[in-house]
């Protein structure tokens, strides 16, 4: 029970403090200069209980006579029933040294900042009472599909697949033509018009796939070098000529090791000797 009252008092703390101020005012008017905390709290509690009791009794008298709104007679009955003497109330009201407390100002209601709101909230329909909370963000209850229904016709799908395949092939060939070696159809030096991907087979053809290598930065540090996709841009100039010559000759050689070493553009000490031989 005491916990309930404590909780109630904490919620109306401001009013309790105002009652404290009012009680202090009355004490000042009476002639006291100071009071201790316990007396002040006792008197405040008395005032609060007085108000509650008067309200209760007056309401009871009012309902007893079949009314809903209390009248002064109800209030008088309640006060007299409590034993309070109101004889000199008019003189008391007209006393000279009365202080008046300012009514408490209404604190502004702290508005919760609108966080994480996307879109504008819709207006409530007229059948919804106005005192209910506003509608949530529209994405919470409205679902709009983000894509159209895909086409399921066989013909359209086949056509789309064929288009995709053709585009992929074209793009890939263009890319390879721009980055790797190209053959020229015509007997001109520049081949911007019709680049063809040069087809230079390496021997053995499966070897670059079995031993993959990253991008080559420094040819001197390589242990093995393969002509990956016939790429000659990374090779140093002197080795390029040699490897071209060796590549042409290496096809004839039946010895797998020799052809390997001829194809290598190795910076190791042993391989230049082999290349030169």
């Amino acid at each position, binding site marked *: 029970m005491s916990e309930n009252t404590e909780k109630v008092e904490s919620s109306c703390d401001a*009013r309790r403090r*105002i*009652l404290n101020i*009012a*009680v202090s*005012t*009355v*004490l000042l*008017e*009476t*002639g*006291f*200069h*100071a*009071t*201790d905390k*316990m*007396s002040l709290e*006792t*008197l405040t509690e*008395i*005032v*609060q209980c*007085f*108000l*509650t*009791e*008067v*309200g*209760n009794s*007056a*309401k009871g*008298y009012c309902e007893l*006579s079949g009314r809903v*709104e*209390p*009248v*002064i*007679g*109800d*209030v*008088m*009955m309640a*006060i007299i029933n409590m*034993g*309070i*003497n*109101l004889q*000199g*109330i*008019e003189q*008391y*009201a007209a006393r000279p040294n*009365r*202080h*008046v*407390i*300012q*009514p*408490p100002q209404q604190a502004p209601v702290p508005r919760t900042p609108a966080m994480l709101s996307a879109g504008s909230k819709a207006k409530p329909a007229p059948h919804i009472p106005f005192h209910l909370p506003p509608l949530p963000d529209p994405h919470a209850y409205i679902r709009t599909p983000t894509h159209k229904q895909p086409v399921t016709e066989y013909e359209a799908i086949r056509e789309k697949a064929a288009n995709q395949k053709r585009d992929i092939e074209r793009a890939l060939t263009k890319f390879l033509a721009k980055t790797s070696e190209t053959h020229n159809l015509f007997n001109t030096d520049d081949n911007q018009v019709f680049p063809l991907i040069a087809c230079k087979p390496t021997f053995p053809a499966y070897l670059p796939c079995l031993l993959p290598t990253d991008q080559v930065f420094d040819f001197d540090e390589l242990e093995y070098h393969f002509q990956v996709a016939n790429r000659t841009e990374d090779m140093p100039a002197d080795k390029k000529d040699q490897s071209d010559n060796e590549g042409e000759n290496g096809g004839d050689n039946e010895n797998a090791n020799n052809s390997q070493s001829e194809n290598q553009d190795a910076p190791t000490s042993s391989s230049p000797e082999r290349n030169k031989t």
Partner: protein
Amino acid sequence: MQMSRMSSPSIGMDEDSGAGHALTDFLLQLENYSPSIPDSVVAYYLNMSGFESQDPRLIRLIALASQKFLSDIANDALQHCKMRTSSQINQSSKNQKGPKEKKYVMTMEDLVPALQEYGISAKKPHYFV
């Protein structure tokens, strides 16, 4: 809302109706006077116990009644306090200071007998367990 004899049929006795008359007139004067306790605070406590009134004069009457009640208690406590200090000053007969100690401090010692006369027993424990 008309404040007249007709609106309070529950009170039929002459004394009460006379008091009702006087207070009805007083209530008209009350519009100019505002008691120490603000109206909103009194209205809040009355609403908590179910008493809802649209007439501010009724609220002010209740506030004034509580204020008078409080000042009566305070006056009685002041009497007690004065008795106490006057007896102490009489005991210390050597009066260096001519005027008497004018500052009165209200303590529980003065308040409890004052409340006792009103039928309110306020017993506080001297120690806390």
